[in-house]
Every structure is written in C-alpha cells, then in structure tokens.
C-alpha cells in the first residue's frame, strides 16, 4: 500500500476542518528523465472523504495538482470523537485509505 | 555598503580568546588540511580546485577587511599582467550571443557537461537589459553601460579586460576572472563586451 496520509481534523463552533497531506509523486507524464525519456504519468485521480458513511468531499484530480498534495476543506455537522475517513485512488490503480478522529 | 559591527564574530572571538584555543595561523593550517580531506573529486571538479593562487589566498578574508595598500597594488598588478587581448585587435563581438552567455549559469560545476560551453551567468549578480527583471544585486547595475561611457578604444579595452580578469582593476573582486581562469573563450568575451557597449544592445536602449 502507498505511504500513509497525515490527517488532522478539528471541530469548532459546528464547523469541522479537515487538513490532509498526501504522499504522492503526482507525475504529469510530460517530464523527461536524465536520459531524455518521458516519465510516465502517475497521479491521484479521485479523492473521497466520508463521515459516518456519508460523503463529505468528492474530488477528481488531474496532473495540475502538485506533488505531495495538501488538501483542506470543511463541513458542518461533525462531532468530536467521531472519525473522518479519506481515500484516494490513482491512475495506476494504487489506493490508500486513512482515517482520523475529530479533535 | 559596509555592514555594521558583526556581533556574531565578537561573541565567538571572546569565547575563543578566553579559553584554550588554537591560534589563528594554526586554524588556517588545520583548515587547509581538513578541506583537502573533506572533498572528493567529481565530474570535472578535481581536487586542484582547492589550490589557491596568491590573490585567492590574500582575499580569503571577511569582505569588510581593508587590505594594506601594497597588497592591493600587488594583486592588481599581477592580475593586470595576465590579461590577453585578442590578437586581431577586435574587441566587439555579437551582442545577441552575448545576451545568451549572460543568461547562462552553467559551466564548470561537477554536475555540468565539460563538453558544453560555459556561460558567464552575469544576471546572477547584475542588472543588464531593462526587460530582464530577474537579476541579482551582488554586483552593480550595468543598465546603460555603453550609453554612459561610449565605445572608445580605451573603454573597450577596460571592459574586455574587466571581464577577462576583474581583479586587474579591483583586488579581491567578487566577480570571477573569466578569461584568466579559462571559464570563457575569447569569442564569448568579445560577445559580452558587445552586449555592454554596442549601441544596439538591449543594455543600451
């Protein structure tokens, strides 16, 4: 499985803020290596975050997203102590799922 | 612009003077020893790059150091003597090539291909043409260089000479000695002279 994400989730005044740091090369497929060969594209294609089974974020990414991407978003209605689950899948079929408890 | 008193060094100097330490001469000797043992040759960078000539030895001092007048004159005289002007007497090349050479920061690093020509990397330290905003400030601005000075033979000789060996005119200059150290070819230095002096050059618009 790919490298773990770093996820921090905090709730304040009813708003839950999720901060995720993902470990991924996010290769665009346009770069050339030192021998002059194209480095194949390898990037996260979809991101899904759920809370109590409900999707709170769904994203489709492309090659414009930077290496080791940082994602921050918010949603309402989450409670401290509950979990947020984040999953990504890339164009090669690699996946990663991690979870964090709301602070 | 000289910097203010460097409290950093004073503090360390106090500690070193107050406790048992090695002398400054011993530190210099040990430093050379340590350096020789701390580098590996790699690519085109051989260990002889650590061998210092007289100017390098004398100039290995803090920037604010005022060297004795005789030392300054000795360095400038020796470096002036090293300048080789083009045999054909023509000092002005092609400013368009000069601009490319001024923009190019490659050459002589252990990561560089020794077969490719080196650049002068002028923009690392100097402003040159008005349109290039990505310029450094380690050296003075050269915008309008030729406009201010004209392109008389004397100015051409000074300009080419400065590029060939900056320390001929300013002992311990931060500027590399492009001709004397074999960084640039004669044609490249002619092209840079033109970049600075040719009225059509972007430097003089």
């Amino acid at each position, binding site marked *: 499985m790919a490298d773990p994400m*770093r996820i921090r989730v905090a709730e304040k005044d009813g708003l839950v803020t999720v901060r995720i*740091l993902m470990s991924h090369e996010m290769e665009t497929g346009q770069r050339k290596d030192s021998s002059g060969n194209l480095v194949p594209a390898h990037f996260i294609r979809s991101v899904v975050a759920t809370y109590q089974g409900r999707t709170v974020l769904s994203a489709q990414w492309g090659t414009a997203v930077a290496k*080791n991407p940082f994602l921050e978003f918010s949603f309402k209605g989450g409670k401290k102590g509950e979990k947020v689950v984040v999953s990504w899948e890339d164009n090669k079929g690699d996946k990663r799922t991690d979870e964090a408890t709301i602070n | 612009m000289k910097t203010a008193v460097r*409290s950093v060094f004073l503090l*360390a100097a106090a500690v070193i003077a107050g406790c048992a330490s090695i002398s400054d001469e011993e*530190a210099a000797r040990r430093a050379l020893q340590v*350096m020789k043992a701390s580098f590996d040759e790699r690519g085109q960078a051989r260990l002889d790059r650590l061998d210092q000539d007289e100017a390098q030895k004398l100039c290995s001092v803090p920037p604010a150091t005022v060297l004795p007048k005789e030392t300054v004159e000795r360095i400038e005289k020796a470096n002036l003597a090293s300048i080789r002007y083009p045999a054909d007497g023509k000092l002005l090349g092609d400013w368009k090539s000069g601009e490319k050479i001024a923009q190019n920061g490659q050459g002589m690093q252990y990561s560089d291909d020794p077969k490719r020509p080196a650049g002068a990397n002028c923009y690392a330290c100097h402003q040159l043409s008005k349109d290039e905003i*990505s310029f450094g400030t380690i050296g*003075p601005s050269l915008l309008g260089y030729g406009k201010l000075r004209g392109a008389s033979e004397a100015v051409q000789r000074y300009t080419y000479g400065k590029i060939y060996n900056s320390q001929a005119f300013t002992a311990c200059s931060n500027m*590399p000695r492009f001709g004397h150290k074999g960084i640039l070819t004669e044609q490249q230095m002619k092209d840079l002279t033109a970049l600075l002096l040719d009225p059509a050059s972007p430097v003089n618009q």
Partner: protein
Amino acid sequence: MKRRSTRRALFAGAALALCAAGPAFPQSAVDEIAKYRQQLQDGNPAELWEARGEDLWKQRRGPGNVSLEGCDLGKGAGVVKGAYAELPRYFADADRVMDLETRLAHCMVTLQGFKFEAAVKRPFGNGSNRSDFEALAAWITSESKGVPMNVSLSNPKEREAYQIGEKMFFFRGGTHDFACATCHGETGKRIRLQDLPNLTDRAGAQAAYTTWPAYRVSQGELRTFQWRLNDCFRQQRFPDLKFTSEGSIALTMFLAYNANGAAYNGPAIKR
C-alpha cells in the same frame, strides 16, 4: 543660498545612494513572498518525512536488529527533544565533534551493526530512492521546534571546529574564486531573484540556520544542512563535499553557533 545647496547636496546624495544600491525588488513583492511562504507552512510535505523518520528511529534494523532509541544525540540516550538545538557538539565516546547526520551514522554503526559505508550509502534521496538520513533528520529536528539554538564552544575541539569552519567560510577557491562569503557576506543582496542571508550577521545566520532541514518544493524532497553545504560547493565550482566529513561538520559548527539564541524553526518549506 546655504539652504539651497544643502538641499541639492541631500538630493544628490540620495540619488547617488539609489544609484549605488541598484534597483531593489519592491518591498511589497518581498512582503507578498513572505505571506505566501506563511500560507505554505500549513501542509508542509516535510511532515511526511517526519512520520517516516519517527518510524525509522523506533524500528529494529541492521545486523544487530536494534532500534535507534538507544542513540545518544547529546542529551542522553534516546533523548530527542531539544537535541538538534545543541548540535554540533563534542561526543566523548567518539572523541570528536559531530553534527546530527554524523552522530546518526555513528549510532547506526555502533548500535545497529551497520558498516559505515553501507550506512551512508544514500545521504540524499531522489523520488522513490529514499534517504533514511533525510527522514530521520526531519523527525529529530521537528522535536527541537521552538527551542532556542544553544550550541556550545566549551570543549576545545568544538572551538577548533568553529575556527576551521570560519576559515572555510572565507576560503576563496575554485575556477570562479567563490567563497561562501561571496554570496553570504553582505546584507540585502540577492542572486537573480533569490534573497541571500548575510551569514556574517547574527540576524542573517539565525534566520538561515533555523530553517534547515526544509522541504524544497522545486525538488519535491526534504533537504538537510549537509545537502545545503554540498550543493553550495557544487555551485561554487568546488569538488564534492563528502557527507559527514570533518569540513562539513566544521562549517555547520560555525553557522550553528552563529545562530545561537534564535528559536529553531524547522523543518521549514522553501522554494
């Protein structure tokens, strides 16, 4: 008449000062870059290296199948908090001054049973070819975040290292006659558009030293101070500064001591 000439002199002086200093990057642009850097701090990919480093510290590895948790970074075996703020320092068990990476290599050899050459095989990572040193350095330095730099010169070998480092800093050499001081010896200078810290000035040394290691966005890698020194020398047209060489430790000693008093602020994020 007197007032007019004074005004003219002042004006001429001001104009000359502007000419002498050269065109400066507008302060507004410098401030905007600083604001941008602040925003990047949240979500610094260096944290990915920190997580890996913490695992590596605790993992049993090497022929000895031992973790690094017994490694003494200067504040006692296994004490990581605040250790980086006091490095480099003299270690009696090795009878020499060591910086962080040198001490880590020492523990990899003496505790975990690695051979030195094997331990330092990959000092700097590149994509999927990762360096354990960069991960370990990321985590260990993060455990000194906020701690004031407190490097000591109490041992004669520490003082010698400082003096040697100082000589190296001003050493003009190579094809281009560059010393560290050529770029880092004056305040307010930049190379192209990259501002240069004046490392001979306390404030400059503090700001610069306390932000390494850093995630280098342009490389997509976390880089340590050993890397920074090696890459500076490469650009100075010097040969290859050996990883954990005595010269690299001496230079680090010189710069770390000069940064004393400032709160350590790494791992940071840089362009």
